[in-house]
């Protein structure tokens, strides 16, 4: 038997105008187990709260029902009253007779009748309410940032500057990401390296940042505040502790590998640093290109290394890092345009993708910053194709957001570095960003030709060997265009990293249909994910430009701080639990949970729920066929009882 107190609020006239509040209190008093029922002008006022507190003591109440405004308004207020009176705060039930009764009717009969039904439901439910306690856990103050492009670098620096220890994990041998490959950045045309490399250096120097290059996350255990993350250090075959970066090894090395940094336009050595300003500026050996690894002899690098830093026996190693929060900033890949046969990428030497062109402009690039074709000629006419694979239902439906602007940048740089005619083939010109429209206008004036129509086809010229014919429909004139050019630049879709699904699985993130990570809420929680304590920043969430990426990095750092700044963390109390006696091991809960909270305990043969991961949505309880899962505060019993109460009158 419960001892229920019912407190009916007038809310001035807000409620009392269309609900007969005293009649409601009298009605409540007739319901089984209700030992006290009162009405009062403003229940949320101090005297109102005191009245409830006094009655809890005087009548030894073990359940409290406040019949007032929406629980979204004052549930917390009244929970505190219960807690202060020594009653568990979850033994409270709110009946919403303001927003959902008195404010939506003018008819006092209707209002009163509906209020009675709602109250009856609440009394039924209140009897079955159980006291709940939140679990408090210790929080590890460190943070891991996965991916060291501009987003990861920025986030790591921000966090490190607040004094937090940061593990920055990068799978390549250098940090910097795509931004390190760019020559200039739009719309200001400032040099990419000039603004990025100081940050890269800061990372290396920062006492709070542990830089983990050539590293990959292989396992994530734990939950918010207490992640145990296993990181694999891939073998570099160079002991970076001994190496003094003299780079004598790279001079002597006879091996030839493909330069990733130069987008494969040139070769590099088998022992190499990716580019001169790489961080850390210490070489690694590319096993697939190394003569020793291929043929079993060479070891020239070992001979020239005075530090004895070369170690051909080095193996992959694993370490486990404990952190309280994680920022995932794994960036993007460009879509492979080879399968789009109509553009001839990979077949015609004159067709380039955007990142290759970035390298052509760069003074540290394969051509020393001169724009020349693969055969050494300077192009006379250049076509830039926008939206290759983007805004394309057959490939990627999204707009990649940056292509319009970098295509304009390319046009400018082509104009600056060559005397070529430059043609832009675009669907729409999207220049939404600070200074972007102005940049567009500037390029228009630079004698760049704009053709509103998507590049449809690239073919070899039959008349002039080595030249290309581009085809498109000019949608303004409605004319079909055929144009001879020397160079075609494709602006391919930005897509998630090839391994984004693996990353998603590791960190229990959800992805959209292409593999971009899903934010918790598209507007109100764009950097949080459905996994508490895991945040995202940069293009891994969706295509965006550098300013937006950096802004997100700051934001994600702040989000991560909100967790690691605390010593203790209170977990949800309204979580789900499994009654092992009823569990039939169908694993439905394990299959559906968006947070990976339920897991199968092989030994016991039943499912269990990691309450630290549970958000209390109750999905598992509804897919549990044997009703073994108890969704606390919304149990089957409680819902059924409430329904019965609502339907009784």
């Amino acid at each position, binding site marked *: 038997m419960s001892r229920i107190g019912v407190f009916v609020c007038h809310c001035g006239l807000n409620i009392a105008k269309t609900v007969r509040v005293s009649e409601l209190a009298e009605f409540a008093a007739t319901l089984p187990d209700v030992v006290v029922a009162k009405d009062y002008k403003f229940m949320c006022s101090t005297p109102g709260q005191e009245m409830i507190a006094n009655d809890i003591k005087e009548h030894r109440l073990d359940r409290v029902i406040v019949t007032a405004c929406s629980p979204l308004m004052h549930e917390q207020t009244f929970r505190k009253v219960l807690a202060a009176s020594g009653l568990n705060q979850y033994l409270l039930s709110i009946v919403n007779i303001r927003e959902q009764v008195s404010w939506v009717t003018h008819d006092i009969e209707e209002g009163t009748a509906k209020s009675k039904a709602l109250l009856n439901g609440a009394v039924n439910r209140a009897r079955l309410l159980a006291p709940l306690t939140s679990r408090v856990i210790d929080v590890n103050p460190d943070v891991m940032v996965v991916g060291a492009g501009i987003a990861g670098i920025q986030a790591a620096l921000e966090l490190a500057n607040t004094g937090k220890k940061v593990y920055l994990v990068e799978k390549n041998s250098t940090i910097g990401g795509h931004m390190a490959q760019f020559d200039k950045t739009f719309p200001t045309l400032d040099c990419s390296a000039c603004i990025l490399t100081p940050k890269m250096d800061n990372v290396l120097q920062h006492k709070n940042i542990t830089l983990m290059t050539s590293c990959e996350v292989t396992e994530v255990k734990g939950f918010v505040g207490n992640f145990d993350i296993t990181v694999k250090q891939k073998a570099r075959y160079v002991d970076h502790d001994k190496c003094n970066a003299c780079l004598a090894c790279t001079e002597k090395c006879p091996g030839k590998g493909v330069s990733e940094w130069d987008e494969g336009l040139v070769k590099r050595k088998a022992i190499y640093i990716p580019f001169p300003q790489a961080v850390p500026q210490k070489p690694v050996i590319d096993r697939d290109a190394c003569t020793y690894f291929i043929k079993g002899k060479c070891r020239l690098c070992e001979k020239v290394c005075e530090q004895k830093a070369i170690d051909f026996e080095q193996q992959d190693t694993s370490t486990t890092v404990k952190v309280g929060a994680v920022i995932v900033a794994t960036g993007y890949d460009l879509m492979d345009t080879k399968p789009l046969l109509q553009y001839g990428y990979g077949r015609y030497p004159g067709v380039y993708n955007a990142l290759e062109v970035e390298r052509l402009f760069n003074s540290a690039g394969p051509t020393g910053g001169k724009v020349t074709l693969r055969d050494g000629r300077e192009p006379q006419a250049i076509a830039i194709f926008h939206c290759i694979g983007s805004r394309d239902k057959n490939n990627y439906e999204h707009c990649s957001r940056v292509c319009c602007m970098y295509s304009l940048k390319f046009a400018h740089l082509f104009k600056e570095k060559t005397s070529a005619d430059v043609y832009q083939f675009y669907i729409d010109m999207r220049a939404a960003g600070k200074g972007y429209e102005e940049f567009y206008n500037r390029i228009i004036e630079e004698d760049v030709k704009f053709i509103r129509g998507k590049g449809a086809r690239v073919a070899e010229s039959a008349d002039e060997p080595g030249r290309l014919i581009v085809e498109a429909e000019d949608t303004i004139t409605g004319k079909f265009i055929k144009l001879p050019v020397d160079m075609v630049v494709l602006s391919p879709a930005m897509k998630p990293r090839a391994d984004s699904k693996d990353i998603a699985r590791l960190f229990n993130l959800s992805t959209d*249909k292409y593999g971009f990570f899903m934010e918790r809420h598209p507007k109100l929680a764009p950097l949080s994910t459905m996994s508490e304590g895991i945040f995202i920043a940069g293009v891994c969430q969706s295509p965006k430009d550098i300013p937006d990426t950096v802004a997100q990095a700051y934001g994600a750092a702040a989000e991560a701080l909100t967790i690691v700044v605390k010593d203790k963390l209170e977990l949800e109390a309204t979580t789900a639990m499994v009654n092992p006696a*009823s569990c*039939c*091991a*169908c*694993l*439905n809960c394990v*299959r*559906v949970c968006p947070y990976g909270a339920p897991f199968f305990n092989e030994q016991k*043969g039943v499912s269990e729920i990691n309450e630290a991961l549970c958000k209390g949505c109750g999905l598992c309880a509804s*897919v549990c*066929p*044997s*009703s073994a899962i108890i969704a606390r505060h919304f*149990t*089957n*019993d409680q819902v*059924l009882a409430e329904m019965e109460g609502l339907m009784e009158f």
Partner: protein
Amino acid sequence: MATSFKQIEEKLKTEAAKLLESGSVSLVLAYGKGYDEKHPMPYVAKCASDVANIVFNEFCTYNMARYLVRYPRGTKIAVAVKAADSRAVIQLIQEEKVKREDLVILGIPVSGMKNPKTGETIDSKTTCGLYNPVLYDVLLGEEVHGQPVVSPYDVLAGYEAMDKDARWAFWQKEFDRCIRCYACRKACPMCYCDPCFIDQTKPKWGDKSPEPAGNLMYHLTRFHHLAGRCIDCGECSRACPVDIPLYLFHKKVAKECEEMFGQAAGMSIEDKPALVNFRVDDSDKILE
């Protein structure tokens, strides 16, 4: 030319003996003698000498997949399956109740099975109507050629065309007979919950007594629990001592699920059970 029952029985015995002798399985779920020819029983052969007791004839309707979950996880089991039975095995693999690698599936291609209680030939009216197992390691006979021309859902047409009140009256009459012996759920290969929701007292989903309200709650919820999982073997209806045509309702739900989610139960071990799955582009039309 379809393989005869006798030939299948011989092959079943040979395979069972081979598997048990080699120790590659610890038991074979098949059929054995009952109290007469027309009433064979589910049979578990545990050693080579048990094999002699195995029979197969047109009355061996039981879905032996039903017994898989009775043995501890990891038990190596050979199971004799007809078409629908193999779908049950697939569904159980999807639901991770059994592992594919722990099973040797002895497929039986067969048509013209008979209900041992009534002697009627079993076809697509009361089952999925397939002749050949969907998944097997060994096929104990030649595939039966020519799938049934009649869709397993054709039998529904008359009921779908009924006026809603007539349909309600029809089901009321059927469910009213229910004595709550739970033979339906116990014969069902997919009903492995213990306890069943209806046996729960907290929450109490429905009355325990065989009254219309409790019966309705039991059956409707069971239909929902089997939605996208029922493989239409018809065992529930054959087990029912009061002949409630449960298969009709199951067929209807299966048909709707197939139309809405584009996936039939127990057809591929790669599938995920439809009701613990979703597609972002599921249409809202399914709610209309």
